[in-house]
């Protein structure tokens, strides 16, 4: 039917155009469907992107969306102000340390768990452990913090009560209200929450490895550890690289182990603030709480520029080093 219509199109210029038009008309319902999504993205994803302009402007909230374009330019004033903020050093250090610690501990954890699960021969046990391990992924950070409170707080925490009952310590340790414990607490709860979830992907990678490789290695006399080292790990390499690139790209936001912001905001308090305040929580406070929109937008922008740079460079390095990459 389509072939029939093509030659019939009038020769007066734009035969191809009218053909396209016909095709478009035939697909009009589909374009309507897709158009809904495009309008949606325009409003909720692209309009905010223009809002980045306000980082360079003297924006006031009374101006609404129009104010983004009409308010006066101030150049890099807000960036300058942030760099000279007396908290700047602390914020950058806390952000980086938290992100790096998370990569260091939370990235290998699911790989190890996947390898261990793969060695389990009782399918029921394996499935049970797996099911339990990704349950915390579906629980909100609020609940995770609530659980930490129930376990670690100085007055009701189970851990402190148990430590004191067993005589390890005379007075409760201030896990939640001491700058010394915040990083460990944040990394530990992140691993607890997301380890099992990422294990799914690594287990899938392992299941793609041909069993004949293992059989051959066994005949050659390779022990269990040798098989893990020479077959399982190389077989997971592609997935490991992709997940690592993803992690590094989103490292400032918390990466694959969930939101740095939610952790720092919920686990943070006035006493552990020296280690718990990060760039994002600070931007939130000065932005939405104090109403300094332009300043907060500038801080946000610095952070996203670094994130984009990180994802592209880590992707590039991964491609060069291992041949696998995200895009």
């Amino acid at each position, binding site marked *: 039917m389509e072939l029939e219509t093509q030659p019939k199109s009038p020769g007066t210029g734009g035969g191809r155009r009218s053909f396209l038009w016909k095709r478009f008309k035939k697909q009009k319902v589909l374009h309507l469907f897709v158009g809904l999504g495009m309008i949606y993205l325009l409003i909720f994803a692209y309009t905010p992107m223009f809002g980045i302009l306000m980082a360079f402007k003297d924006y006031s909230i009374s101006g609404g969306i129009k104010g983004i374009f009409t308010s006066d330019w101030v150049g890099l004033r807000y960036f300058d102000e942030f760099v000279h903020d007396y908290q700047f050093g602390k914020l950058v250090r806390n952000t980086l340390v938290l992100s790096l610690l998370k990569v260091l501990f939370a990235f290998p954890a699911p790989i190890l768990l996947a390898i*261990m699960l793969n060695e389990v021969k009782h399918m029921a046990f394996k499935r*049970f452990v797996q099911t339990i391990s990704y349950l915390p992924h579906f629980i909100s950070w609020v609940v995770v913090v609530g659980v930490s409170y129930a376990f670690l707080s100085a007055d009701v925490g189970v851990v402190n009560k148990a430590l004191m009952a067993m005589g390890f310590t005379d007075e409760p340790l201030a896990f939640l209200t001491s700058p010394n414990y915040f990083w460990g607490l944040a990394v530990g709860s992140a691993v607890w929450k997301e380890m099992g979830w990422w294990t799914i992907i690594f287990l899938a990678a392992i299941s793609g490895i041909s069993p004949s490789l293992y059989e051959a290695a066994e005949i050659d006399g390779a022990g269990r550890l040798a098989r893990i080292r020479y077959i399982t790990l190389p077989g997971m390499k592609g997935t490991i690289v992709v997940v690592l690139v993803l992690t590094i790209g989103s490292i400032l936001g918390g990466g694959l182990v969930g939101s740095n912001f939610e952790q720092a905001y919920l686990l943070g308090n006035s006493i552990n603030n020296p280690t718990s305040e990060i760039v994002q929580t600070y931007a939130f406070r000065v932005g939405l709480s104090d109403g300094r929109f332009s300043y907060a937008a500038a801080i946000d922008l610095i952070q996203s520029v670094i994130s984009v740079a990180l994802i592209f460079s880590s992707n590039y390095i991964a491609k060069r080093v291992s041949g696998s990459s995200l895009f």
Partner: protein
Amino acid sequence: MLKSQRQKDFVFDSVIYVVLFIIMLTMLYPFYYVLIASFNKGSDSLLGGVYLWPRNFTLENYRVFMDDPKWVKAFLVSVLRTVSGTLLGLLLTSIVAYGLSHRDLLFSKVYFTVIVFAMYFSGGLIPYYVVLRSLGLLNSFAVYIIPSMLSTFFLLIAISFFREIPAELKESAHIDGAGELTIFFRIILPVSTPVLATMALFMGVGQWNSWLDSAYFVQSEELRTLAFRMMEVINKSNSPMDSLAVANSASAGVTSFSLQVTSMVVSIVPIICVYPFLQKYFVSGIMLGSVKG
């Protein structure tokens, strides 16, 4: 030689089983502990030593929880936003994905560029807030639903699923005279249960757990969600100032801690209830989006 190998294997296996068992316990016990703490008398829990079962069994915590209109309202808001947010999100995402799943769609390159760009870049919280404010969405129930109806990530997952559906299904319906809407609702959606279930689980859990939007965009007490209320209670008891603050309820023995664990149980139980049913779907569903070769 063979025997020592077997011994080594035994040691190896034992280590793995022990480690996995410990991991399993650390994942399970916190949930269990929260559960028993919610059934234990609040003032008694503060003494410590409740590890395995409630020492002073009571339903008082739940009674206080359910008698407090603040909690009940928050629970209802959460239920309402979860149901409506999930349904509308599923509808919009799958409609758009259906359109995009046609390989011969004109301008599809343009459409995909728009989507992928939106996936990697965003304006950040502050401009987003300004946009929501200008649209008049702040301080309304709609702010929970409308801005989160379309996620680019689920869009791509749904597209790749729809593309796997045999074209013959659509063609034969076309020949029978069915329009795109009929095909979509009567043929495509019914065969797409796995991907719909996956998306429903994630959207639903996201909606149910969400407290940030309630904190950012809503001031009205009427519209607070369960997760937000929980955050309030936890933050209050967590702050060094009033760590032993007793909830201001008439009931003796109910503390802010016992109220907190009770609200946690209320918020965890629905998730635990749906998750076994949807589990088989989401494991394959998430693979679809992540691991390709």
